[in-house]
């Protein structure tokens, strides 16, 4: 049995009340579906005295596709976003990625905001308290030494959120709320700028702040994104390779702009612009060159399970397969 430590549970009845409690410090955590936080509290990799349950807050709910920026409440369950017919039409790569997060039970509870704020993962941290202590701890827990990069100065646990690479290539932003003089103040930041290289605190959301919504700009004509995930099992597993490719084509089918986002490297996902291929047709040569570029620029670490050199090679293949969906009708698209 894995029990939760004793906790204070506050059921927030207003956004102001939630933000007030969250401003007390790192020992107060926001709770949505609980599918990440509860597990991390149980294994002791996250320490908290209080959790603020956000379920009832209407500010965190709703999917609005009427404007140029589609607004998805951070508290929307993954299943509801993934199965939303309008979003499937507008952003099939996003709904495809969300439908592949974990398992049906976790998508029934977990939320989009929760996936964006997913804690970093590492084979040396996602273990029992006893296991971590017995091996002397690491930068993120119990100790002072990194076992992924011996002698390394910073935690390099991986961001394994399936939603993030897709939202990055879609140019999505997040809305973050905080209190100032008793009033709710909102700021916006690009998902591409949301993450830091410090695996101990990789989400750039300060104490007292709360991610309230995700804003996704509608795609212009000729633009499409594809998400590719590789994990050992098709269900439950976090991605071991996670990449999204977006290509915007002009009327002649030539590349107008493009980008590739890659997750499960370190704490910060990588965004690679494809500017040097602008004006080129989308063909096997371009696919091979882009895949080679991604291979050169990305170095998966031995921080999650599976051989990191294989994951690097596999990343090249997944990028290749993603781009082939543009010119091979039989290639699986999403």
């Amino acid at each position: 049995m894995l029990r939760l430590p004793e906790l204070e549970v506050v059921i927030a009845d207003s956004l102001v009340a939630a933000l007030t409690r969250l401003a007390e410090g790192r020992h107060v955590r926001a709770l949505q579906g609980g599918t990440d936080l509860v597990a991390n509290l149980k294994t002791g990799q996250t320490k908290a005295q209080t959790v603020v349950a956000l379920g009832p807050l209407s500010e965190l709910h709703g999917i609005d596709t009427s404007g140029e920026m589609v607004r998805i409440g951070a508290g929307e369950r993954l299943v509801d976003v993934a199965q939303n017919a309008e979003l499937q039409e507008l952003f099939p790569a996003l709904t495809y990625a969300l439908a592949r997060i974990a398992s049906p039970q976790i998508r029934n509870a977990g939320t989009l905001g929760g996936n964006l704020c997913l804690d970093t993962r590492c084979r040396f941290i996602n273990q029992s308290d006893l296991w971590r202590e017995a091996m002397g701890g690491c930068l993120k827990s119990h100790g002072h030494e990194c076992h992924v990069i011996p002698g390394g100065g910073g935690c390099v646990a991986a961001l394994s959120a399936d939603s993030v690479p897709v939202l990055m290539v879609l140019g999505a932003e997040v809305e973050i709320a905080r209190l100032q003089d008793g009033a709710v103040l909102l700021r916006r930041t690009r998902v591409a700028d949301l993450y830091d290289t410090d695996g101990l605190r990789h989400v750039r959301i300060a104490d007292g702040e709360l991610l309230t919504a995700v804003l996704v700009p509608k795609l212009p004509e000729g633009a499409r994104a594809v998400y590719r995930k590789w994990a050992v099992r098709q269900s439950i597993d976090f991605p071991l390779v996670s990449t999204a490719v977006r290509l915007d084509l002009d009327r002649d089918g030539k590349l107008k702009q493009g980008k590739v986002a890659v997750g499960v490297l370190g704490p910060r996902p990588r965004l690679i612009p494809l500017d040097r291929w602008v004006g080129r047709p989308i063909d096997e040569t371009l696919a091979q060159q882009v895949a080679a570029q991604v291979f050169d620029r990305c170095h998966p670490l031995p921080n999650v399970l599976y051989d990191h050199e294989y994951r690097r090679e596999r990343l090249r293949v997944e990028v290749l397969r993603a781009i082939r969906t543009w010119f091979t009708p039989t290639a699986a698209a999403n």
Partner: protein
Amino acid sequence: MTAPSPNHAARAATLVTFQLNGEPVTVAAPPHWTLVEVLRYQLNLTGTKQGCDKGDCGACTVRVDGAPVLACMTLAVLVQGRSVETVEGLGVGGEPHPLQRTFAELGAAQCGFCTPGMLMSASAYLDDLATRDAPTVDAVEISAVLGGNLCRCTGYTKIVQAVAVAAREVVERAQTLAEMSNDEAML
């Protein structure tokens, strides 16, 4: 800005009232207790299994407001006012649920530890199937529906078969009802 933190008060057990298998129940749940702990150790409903306790195995799957969720990841105080169904609530009037019957008939359980979770995931699928316009039974979909439930004994084949047999009964019933309503329309 800092609000007082009434930790000692908040950590006392809270009265939580919810619908459990169709009946209202009230329990005094400590705030750090999960739903699986309250079900098993306060309400003595031990059908819901406590497996990995960290969201991997699906043995603790129950339905909250109809949706299969993991009782080990759900704080008990957060089911206030909601509807919870466990494996104990599956059969009606002493009769087993069609899934319980097909699991038994086809030998879809070996050690049986994963079975309650499998049944809860599958029952949500069957209920969903019954609401579709033209339902069909698809083994790939059944595998996806059961994707959050681990079984270390059976190799899944018989579990998928048992769900498929029960699902076909749902589809046949829907077709019979549709034919009957067509006949009535012609009369």
